[in-house]
């Protein structure tokens, strides 16, 4: 072994998916040690939560995992509803499921596109993914008036009912996306170069994944059949029929494939929910300012794993403490273990397949 070279990867780097700084100790092309440094996007969101009323904090959750804002809104609103025992109408529950699953599909599309981009499939997969994503973003725009930071969920419901004709648009999208998924499989999934770059790279064993509290598609890729939507159903997920895609080896390719399969499962859920959506008023009737007491921990299945909100209320208008357990935070902590002894180009592959979002890591 020659002399070790220290390489600073990031914080401004196209492959670190945000402002992540990796301190690499290199022996030639081989990564001997990889130390992630966080905090470049730290905005003190947990402190902000203590200084805002419960309703005022909803838009801040958009800025956590900014690729899945609806899911963050949902998790926070569910936590507050559990704290205060607020009931939600059936229509609102179905709407929430549809919106959350659409956002999951969007989020996975970005993950797949950027992952392929990281592996050198320059621009094409990314543009294909973003083309599909645009359709849902436009749909969200018509529902809530924003394209990225939606602030759509409310404590006790949603901010507004979906406009007329949205159901048909969603049905059209499902039919369209199913065709696209076949194309993605043909173009990307079994492409020889893609396989060579991602198979058997960064193998995450079942034990390591559980020990590091890795969740979401990364955990399922390691062969653990675990999904909060199935195991501890919230909303109305227990009414729908869907599978949990599981990987065999826990390598980067499996993490990619699980995400791709999850899109088609999300489409299945949306299709069933659209068919069974009840009439009613989904708009929240809860006061905007209220007090709460008690404490609650609630987690939901976000696209990147289990997002948990730990709320402590002491009778004030604001939460006394709001801890956000973000999935990417735990998923990133396993990186050092995964990349020991890999090539530097494979490190990019592992990082891309872990699919992190710095917004929710630094908070």
């Amino acid at each position, binding site marked *: 072994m020659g002399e070790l070279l220290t390489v600073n990867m990031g914080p401004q780097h196209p492959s670190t998916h945000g402002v992540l700084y990796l301190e690499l100790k290199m022996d030639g092309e081989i990564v001997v040690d990889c130390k992630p440094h966080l905090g470049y996007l730290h905005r003190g969101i947990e402190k902000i939560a203590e200084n805002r009323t419960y309703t005022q904090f909803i838009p801040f959750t958009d800025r956590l995992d900014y690729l899945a804002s609806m899911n963050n809104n949902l998790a926070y609103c569910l936590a507050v509803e559990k704290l205060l025992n607020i009931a939600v109408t059936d229509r609102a529950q179905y709407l929430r499921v549809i919106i959350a699953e659409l956002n999951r599909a969007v989020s996975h599309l970005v993950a797949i596109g950027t992952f392929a981009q990281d592996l050198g499939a320059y621009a094409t997969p990314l543009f294909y993914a973003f083309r599909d994503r645009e359709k849902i973003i436009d749909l969200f725009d018509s529902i809530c008036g924003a394209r990225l930071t939606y602030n759509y969920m409310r404590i006790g419901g949603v901010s507004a009912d979906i406009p007329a004709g949205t159901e048909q648009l969603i049905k059209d999208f499902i039919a369209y996306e199913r065709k696209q998924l076949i194309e993605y499989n043909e173009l990307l999934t079994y492409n020889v170069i893609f396989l060579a770059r991602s198979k058997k790279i960064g193998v995450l064993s079942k034990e390591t994944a559980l020990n590091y509290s890795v969740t979401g598609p990364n955990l399922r890729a390691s062969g653990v059949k675990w999904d909060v939507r199935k195991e501890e159903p919230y909303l109305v997920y227990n009414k729908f029929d869907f599978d949990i895609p599981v990987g065999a080896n826990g390598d980067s390719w499996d993490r990619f494939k699980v995400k791709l399969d999850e899109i088609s499962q999300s489409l299945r859920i949306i299709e069933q929910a659209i068919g069974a959506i009840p009439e009613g008023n989904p708009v929240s009737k809860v006061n905007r300012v209220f007090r709460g007491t008690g404490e609650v921990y609630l987690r939901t299945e976000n696209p990147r794993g289990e997002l948990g909100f730990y709320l402590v209320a002491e009778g004030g208008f604001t939460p006394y*403490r709001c801890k956000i357990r973000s999935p990417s935070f735990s998923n990133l902590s396993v990186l050092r273990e995964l990349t020991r002894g890999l090539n530097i180009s494979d490190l990019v592959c592992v990082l891309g397949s872990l699919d992190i979002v710095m917004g929710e890591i*630094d908070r």
Partner: protein
Amino acid sequence: MLNSEVLQKIKNKFPDISIEETPNALIISKSAFLDVAHFLKDEMTFENCHCVTAVDRKDKMELVYHLYSTPNHFMLTLKTIVPLDDLTVESISGLWRSADWLEREVFDLFGIKFLNHPDLRRIMNPDNWTDFPLRKDFKRADFIPRPQSQGLNK
């Protein structure tokens, strides 16, 4: 599985330690915490340390651990009280690797020191910082607390 069942099993194993039961959580004394954590992981199937955090109660610090048992589908909330004059507690990162970064976060934001932690550095704020921002007595010139509107003060 219920809190009371876990409580009973811990009491059977460690008859001497004091455990307090609240509706949501078990509060375990700081000195016995590591032993109980060992027991929970090795014999009670709590193989997933989901979340570690702290709450500043002004007169004391409260550490909150969320441990998950997959076979039992049960999330256990475990608490331990850290007095302000001795802000140290044994690290559990040797048991659950996920606790490594989560404990660093608590150290960074609350200033609680974790003994025998492999790499106890600040994780989000710069290393040369001296403040602990999530403490209730945190004050800085550029930190603006909750806007005091009249409606909220009534």
